[in-house]
């Protein structure tokens, strides 16, 4: 499974790089795959509402043919409905693959993974019933295959396939049931979507407005210019030589038709079961797992910042056991993904994953990084990079003379680390994060920027010269952008006076643990 994850990560990083080169990381659609899928659901709802007004269960093929022939609205609405369903499947599939490749499919994310699979499956069933409703040769082919597969199960006393045999018209009830499923399932999708994001704080459901309208506009234009052809009406007593198949939704159909029904079921189980087991199969061994955040109650001031910043709603404020009037943060380990964003939010550095809290970051600087840098001479410009950023970008930064300092996520970086570097004589610190919608910790770059420049707790102290602090986005495929951002920052630093190094900077001792009994006095 790890091998598969690495393979997909490599493939998706390549695709990510290509799309970033084309559209820029701000508009990279692959970063918005999940939200694009939701946007397509809305398009499907809107166009579906129109189509259902003209659909007749008594004469399905004729009513759809009438719609398709309507040059004003019906024709392109039907095509838009179809293209949106295809894009939904593509976007949802890409979203799932990204989550899998980025190791975001286990632990507290299991609920999102499983509900996502349900959404994807329900979307496919919805598409299946939609194509059957059109009752052209493709719809008939899907219905026949569905009937063949269902007939293997002990569900019906008489095979479902018999209604397609041609010894009578296909009953309207069949199309009514299909239409019911086709309409009822999206309601289920709504519930599934709610479940899918239920563990997220501030879930983003739609892509940025401009990108969303650009996608919808492009799809509409394609629907007008390239209308989806409708196959000949279904005829049970005629063997079609060719049928136009939607390979996005029904790529499996030509394979499944060639297999005995039992083998086809076994094959689909072989595809579905591993997907269901992904949370179990990708779960890291206990020793390799990042531990969930913990809270040092002696340091917690009850400021309520970490629950606000946590992207997973894993932190709540509770009353203290000792009767003290302030609240104390409590982390629910079942919800914590150990992104470390809370560590960057805590001014007294009392919360965060073990080894990655603010004071752990400072201790590492003091004991390992700083001595090594001092030994090498004067401190260079520091580029603090998220560990997810591409190695090529880090190498480019090194080649430009920066010292690359890694943190698990840009949001994990405590602002004191930046202050520490600058007060020890570093000419400047540039904090490099992933594109905001590609952040494994969800909100790392957003909170980093707020903490550095907009006084969000734990803010960069006013005593730090902001001109020596910068941020950059390191996106795969945008090496030029990374280098340009660094060079811009370097030019900005060159215009400043040489840095002054201070001695004995002890930022963490400003917030040393104080026994609670003393604070009560």
């Amino acid at each position, binding site marked *: 499974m790890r091998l598969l994850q690495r393979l997909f990560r490599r493939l998706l990083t390549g695709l990510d790089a290509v799309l970033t080169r084309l559209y820029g990381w701000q508009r990279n659609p692959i970063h918005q795959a999940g939200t694009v899928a939701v946007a397509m659901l809305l398009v499907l709802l809107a166009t579906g509402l129109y189509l259902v007004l003209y659909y007749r269960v008594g004469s399905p093929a004729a009513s759809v043919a009438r719609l398709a022939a309507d040059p004003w609205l019906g024709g392109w609405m039907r095509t838009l409905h179809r293209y949106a369903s295809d894009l939904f499947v593509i976007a949802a599939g890409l979203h799932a693959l990204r989550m899998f490749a980025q190791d975001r499919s286990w632990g507290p994310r299991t609920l999102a993974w499983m509900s996502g699979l349900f959404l994807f499956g329900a979307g496919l069933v919805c598409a299946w019933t939609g194509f059957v409703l059109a009752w052209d040769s493709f719809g008939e082919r899907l219905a026949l295959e569905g009937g063949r597969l269902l007939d293997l199960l002990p569900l019906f006393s008489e095979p479902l396939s018999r209604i397609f*045999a*041609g010894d009578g018209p296909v009953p309207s009830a069949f199309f009514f049931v299909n239409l019911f499923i086709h309409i009822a399932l999206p309601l289920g999708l709504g519930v599934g979507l709610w479940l899918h994001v239920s563990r997220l704080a501030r879930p983003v459901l739609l892509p940025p407005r401009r990108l969303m309208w650009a996608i919808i506009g492009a799809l509409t234009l394609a629907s007008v210019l390239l209308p989806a052809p409708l196959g000949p009406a279904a005829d*049970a007593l005629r063997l079609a030589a060719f049928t136009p198949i939607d390979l996005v939704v029904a790529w499996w159909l030509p394979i499944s038709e060639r297999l005995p029904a039992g083998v086809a079921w076994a094959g689909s189980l072989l595809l579905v079961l591993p997907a269901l087991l992904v949370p179990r199969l990708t779960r890291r061994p206990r020793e390799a797992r990042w531990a969930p955040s913990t809270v040092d109650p002696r340091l917690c001031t009850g400021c309520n910042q970490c629950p606000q910043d946590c992207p997973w709603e894993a932190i709540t404020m509770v009353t203290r056991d000792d009767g003290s009037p302030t609240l104390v943060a409590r982390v629910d380990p079942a919800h914590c993904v150990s992104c470390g964003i809370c560590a960057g939010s805590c001014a007294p550095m009392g919360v965060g994953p073990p080894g990655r809290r603010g004071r752990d970051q400072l201790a590492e600087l003091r004991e390992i990084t700083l001595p090594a840098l001092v030994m090498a001479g004067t401190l260079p410009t520091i580029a603090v990079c998220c560990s997810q950023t591409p190695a090529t970008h880090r190498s480019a930064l090194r080649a430009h003379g920066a010292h690359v300092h890694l943190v698990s996520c840009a949001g994990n970086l405590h602002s004191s680390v930046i202050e520490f570097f600058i007060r020890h004589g570093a000419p400047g610190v540039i904090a490099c994060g992933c594109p905001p919608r590609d952040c494994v910790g969800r909100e790392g770059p957003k909170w980093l920027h707020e903490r550095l420049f907009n006084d969000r707790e734990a803010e960069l102290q006013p005593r730090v010269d902001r001109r020596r602090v910068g941020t950059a986005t390191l996106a795969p495929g945008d090496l030029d952008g990374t280098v340009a951002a660094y060079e811009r920052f370097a030019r900005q630093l060159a215009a400043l006076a040489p840095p002054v190094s201070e001695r004995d900077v002890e930022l963490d001792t400003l917030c040393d643990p104080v026994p609670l009994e003393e604070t009560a006095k």
Partner: protein
Amino acid sequence: MTVPRLLAATTATGLGLTLLAFASAVPVAYHPQAAARLRLSWSARPERIEVCRQLSAEEQAQREEHMRQRMECVGGFASYALVVEVDGRAIGETVVHGAGLRHDRPLYVLRDFPVPPGEHRLRVRLTRREKTDDDAAAFAEAVVPDADTGLYAGRAQREAAERARRARAAIPPELTLDTLVRLVPRQVALVTFNAERRVLELHGGGGTVGDVLVP
């Protein structure tokens, strides 16, 4: 966004959408050009095979009044042998039971046979496998119109009518279709059971179907 990049992005989007439009309707081969098919499809009630005996007056007197049926029958549902021959060669032989675990549901036949296009002699036979002398009609004859009186008057006739209705609804003990069929490429010839006429019938799908030799 620079102009070359804008052009590249527009071109890529156009290509992507064209690819999407193409992928949404790819013509995929379904059936060979020179293929035709014979399809058998029908559903009917299997005959109920019963051994009945008339209860004596003493036996009836021992029962509660509302349980006093004149006839007591035990049995099951018939099974049928289906044989399909094309040009004298058997292409399908099977036994057909009623559906359900106890075979008490209507039986169904749904079989497809590839047959080359052209003219063929087709013979389909469905024959009951069980031999029985039991006949619901005989039972009806045994009914004495005034056997029941008072509250239960007419019960015997109702029983007889119900049995006769079931017998009529059941598939006949033997069905045969012997006919010439002319199939054009990609045509499906359908053999089905006409419940009104109680015969097997041949329907074509656009091509010419042959004359029934032995209805």
